[in-house]
Structures are given as C-alpha cells and as structure tokens.
C-alpha cells in the first residue's frame, strides 16, 4: 500500500473532515484525484477544479487549488470557459453522475463533440444523494427510491456509449479498485483531449441501505466481487471496469 502522503498538498487539510456521511465513497474519489495530481506533479498554480451541485459538488472547495462550485449541471461549460480562456491550465471537473449526466447531460454531449482538453471525474453513485435518495439518470431499472417506491420504471444511461467513436478518453473504475482508479485518472489527465472517468462510488445512507446493504463495507465488497478489470476492451460489460482502448474517431 502506498503510504506516500504528499498528495495532501492538494487538499485544504484544515477543512477536513468533509461533510459527507460516514461510509460515503466520495472521500476516496477525492483522495485518489489528489494522488493522481501528485503522481503527475501538477502545479498548484496551474490547476483548476470545477464542481456542479450534489454531494460530490462539495469537492471543489476541499482542493487547495483555484476552484469553482457552480450551478446544477453547469460544471462542464464553466470548465470549458476556463480552458478556452487560459489553455495552459489543467482543468478538472469533479462532479456527480446526477449532475453531469442528467441536468447537465447536454453539455457533456457537446464537450465530447468539441473534444475539449479537460478531464471529468464523475462520482457515480446511481442516485440523487444530497436531496435524500431519489431516482437519477443512472439508477438501475426496478430499483426502489423515494420517488420510485414501486421500482424505477426507466433504464439507466450507460455513459460509455456516448463516447463511442468520439476520439475522447473514457474509463470506468470503482472506489474499491484504488490503484486502478488512480491509473484511470492519471491516464485521463495525460490525455490530450476530452477525458472522462466514471468512478463508481457508494452512497450507503440514502441509497445502499434501501437496497439491503447492511453497511458501506458490504457495498465496497460488492465492487470487489462484481467488477473485473478489462483495460483492453472496446466496450465494457456491466461487470467490467477499465480504459476503453479502441475509442477512435470515425471521420466521414
């Protein structure tokens, strides 16, 4: 296990602990992003983090970097505005799946189309956690939430397919697979163009416990048992995590 703590220089340590519930996976994503920054030795005066609304939206303020906590769904256009103004900056979006894929979904489509050179780390917990656990665009079919007490009638969005033949970078990992998650983020940061990391993370308080998980650790162990690493896939199966390799842009 890597005991190197130099990643802490990217965090406002005096603000810790974070506001997230006990057992929440968001802190792991936050830490792993910082470890990826540390590995690449990103300059603190040349790196900006942008968050939208939701639990993970609170991330931005915990980075000891320039940061923006913006309106619901608007993290990507804020990041693009910064990147297009000052190209030399490393611009990273750290926000949730409800924010990025739901109310902000249109911005994601067009950032992919423009292939803007920014990195998005998406905290994917399958629910609107901050408002208490309602159905979100990534909640699986039939799952019971506060707004779907009889089960979700809709099907979730599988974000990887938005990236097909886009020429952009897409990776999926989980908060159990720490080294893999870090690798996915490091590769994303190194990628010249639009890169997106779907980081599966657990919300025990407003989601997992209603699914029958006894505690956060059970959710974490589910990630361990369920997901297999496939870093060479053209497309990830539901139980696979990895970096999509054959994401070539098809030009007509």
């Amino acid at each position: 296990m890597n005991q190197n703590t130099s990643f802490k220089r990217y965090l406002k340590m005096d603000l810790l602990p974070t506001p997230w519930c006990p057992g929440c996976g968001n802190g792991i994503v936050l830490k792993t992003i910082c470890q990826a920054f540390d590995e690449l030795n990103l300059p603190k005066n040349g790196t900006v983090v942008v968050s939208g609304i939701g639990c993970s939206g609170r991330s931005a303020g915990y980075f000891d970097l320039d940061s923006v906590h913006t309106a619901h769904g608007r993290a990507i256009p804020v990041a693009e505005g910064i990147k297009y103004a000052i190209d030399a900056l490393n611009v990273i979006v750290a926000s949730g799946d409800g924010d990025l894929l739901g109310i902000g979904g249109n911005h994601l489509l067009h950032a992919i189309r423009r292939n803007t050179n920014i990195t998005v780390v998406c905290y994917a917990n399958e629910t609107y956690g901050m408002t208490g656990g309602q159905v979100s665009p990534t909640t699986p079919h039939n799952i019971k939430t506060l707004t779907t007490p009889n089960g979700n009638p809709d099907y979730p969005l599988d974000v990887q397919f938005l990236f097909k033949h886009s020429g952009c970078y897409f990776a999926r990992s989980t908060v159990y697979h720490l080294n893999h998650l870090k690798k996915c983020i490091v590769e994303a940061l190194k990628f010249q163009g639009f890169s997106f990391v779907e980081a599966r993370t657990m919300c025990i308080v407003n989601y997992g416990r209603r699914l029958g998980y006894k505690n956060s650790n059970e959710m974490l162990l589910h990630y361990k048992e369920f997901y297999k690493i496939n870093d060479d896939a053209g497309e990830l199966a539901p139980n696979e995590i990895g970096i999509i390799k054959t994401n070539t842009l098809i030009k007509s």
Partner: protein
Amino acid sequence: MKEMLTGNAAAAWGVRLADVDYLPTYPITPQTEIIETLARWICDGVMDATFVTLDSEHSMITAAGAASATGVRVFTATSSQGLLYGFEMLYTVAGWRVPLVMVNVSRALSSPITLEADHNDILATRDSGFLQIHCETCQEVLDSILIAYRLAEDKRVLLPVLVNMDGFLLSFTREPVEIPDIKDVKRFLPPYQPEHAFFKASQPMAQGVAALGGPVYSYFKYQMHLASMNALDVYKEVSGEFGKIFGRKYDTVDGCMMDDAVCVLVMTNSFSTLGKAAVMKARAKGIKAGLLRLRVLRPFPEADIRGAIKMTRAVAVLDQNVSVGKGGILYSEISSALYHEKERPLLLSFIGGLGGKNISSEEFEFIFDAMIHAVDTGKVPAPRLLYTEEEWKQMEGLKKMAGKQ
C-alpha cells in the same frame, strides 16, 4: 380531520385532494418532500395519477405546461434555482394560457450558494404571467392549491398559478392542518372541463405559434394582462365560495390589527407570523401598530392595499428580497399604489431576512421605532438593511479569516 403536517406535506395533500392527473417532477431542496409524498401515495394506490421524474426543471415545466394544454389537471413543484432554470418556460406556459398550478418553495438564489429562504426567486417570475399566491401557514398552502386550480381554470382567467411558501421555515415546519373532506373539495373544485385550450384529435389546434410583427404579439400579450386583472374579481368570488364551504376566508391581503393602526408593517410569507408577534408587542407598549400581509401578489391587489393603508401615518415595507441596483421590490410596488393619493402615509423601506437570515424581535422593534420617529419628524429615513451588531462582528471575523480586512 386535523393532522400535524409540514408545509410540503400540506402541499401534497392539496394536490391529492385536487385529483391531479399528471405530475412531472424533479427534486430540489427544500421542495423534494412534496414529490416524494405524492410518489408514495401513487405507489400505494391512494392517488390515481401519472408520476414521471424528468431530467431537469426546464423539461419538467415544459412537460407540465404541455400536458396542461392537452386538457388534463397538472401539478408540479420546484424551488429557487429550479424555478430559474425553467424560467424560459414560465413565460411560454403562461402564453399558452393553460391552468397549470405549481408550488415554489422559496430559497435564496446563487451565488453565493445557499439553501434558506428569501423571495428573489419567486419575485423574479412576477412579470411572467403566472398568478402568485404567497402563504404564511401550512393550512394556507393546502387551501391555496385548491383555490389556485379554481382560479386558473376559470375561463375569465386561464393563466397558470404559482403558490409560494418559505423553504425550511414553512416547508419543514409541522403545524396542525385541517384536511378538507373530499366531498366538500369536489363541490368546490369539480373536474376540469377545458373549453378553450386543449388538444383533441378531431379538432386540431396549433399552440405556441409565431406571431411576428408587433400588433399580433401586442394583442396576445395585453390579453394576458387583462386576464390577470380579471383574476382579482374572480379570486374574490372563488375565495368567498371557499370560505362558505370550508369556513376559512382568504382575502387578497391579510390584515392584523389594522382597524385603528397608525404604523403599519407590510410583509409576505411565513416571517409575517413573527411580524404579527412584533405588532402585539408594540401594541403592549402603546403603539398603534398593524401588519398587512400581501397574499395575492399577481395580479397586484392595488385597490385593496390602498384601502388598507392610505389612512395610516407610516408604512414600513419589509422586503425579503433585493432588486440589485434598486432596492426592495415590494417597496416600489407599494409606492406606486399610493402615488395618486393626495393624503398618503410616509413610506419606509427595510430589507431583511436575505438568505434566510433571522429577523429578531429587536429588529422589528427598530422598524416600529423608525416609523414613530418618521411620523414625529416628518422625515423618511433612507432604505436600510436589517443586520445586527453581532452578525456584523461575525462577518468581520470571517473576513479576517479570508485575509480581506
């Protein structure tokens, strides 16, 4: 049947009793409890309606307006940023002249980001064509939704209605609420029979068409204005009928100790309860104090307001909003209502409770003292922000932390 209900639960009860057909929804704090309650009832089979979760407030208000245009009864609810995100569609839906009823749970606007109540969100929509009813109590929230459907669906009006309550202070506060008997509700609010705006396969109708060139546009826009003005009389008729059936009377304005009042505080929404307590306190000190709460804000009940305050000596408008670069929004509106009166009270402006900031009894006392001083000297003080010394000290501390002192 009397139950302890939050403002949100009271709103849900209003919707359930109104026998709404379609509910497009999207969660936002502090509104979410309304849609969660309705989702639960629909799943339990106690309510028969179609419940759909949309991807944003913009699509939610669009779907709500469109469904309403097909001739069914529709409800939706939002708050703050959500209301502003769907803002474009508020004007559009009002222009469609459909009787949508929507609840806004007031919450101050970004940025800075916050969750607590003030009225910049709802007042941003005041020119959209939506009628506005502002509530002080949970009971009023429930009753206002029933009144709102009657008002919106009346063919002399045909405009959507926003029912407003304060986030947290009312949305999450339990109060005893009388839940009306469904038989009485059916008597007051029969099923919606669309006569004008509805879709019917055999009679195609184009909605929302372009009207290029000023005259056609002007005609339709002013028609909306006239319909909204009609709504004042219709409101009185409808609320009168509501009073007869349910025994609760809701005028366009709600006066407290107004009969012989000399110094009057004008407010809206749930903080009025604190204002009324301050009036009692002032009365105990021998001040002839009163409070006028504005309940219907659109259409603006100008004559009722004028009638209530024109003979008083001083009126202080307490705005829980700020039109940046102008000041309190209601202060401007009350000023215009009094302009043509030969004898009119001195008019003072206070801005308070922004971002849910408390208004203490000392601050209310300060307002009454300012009114008395104005009456004594004949001079009106400049508009003021209510901010206590302790709050100022706290802010200074924060500025110091940020290295901005």
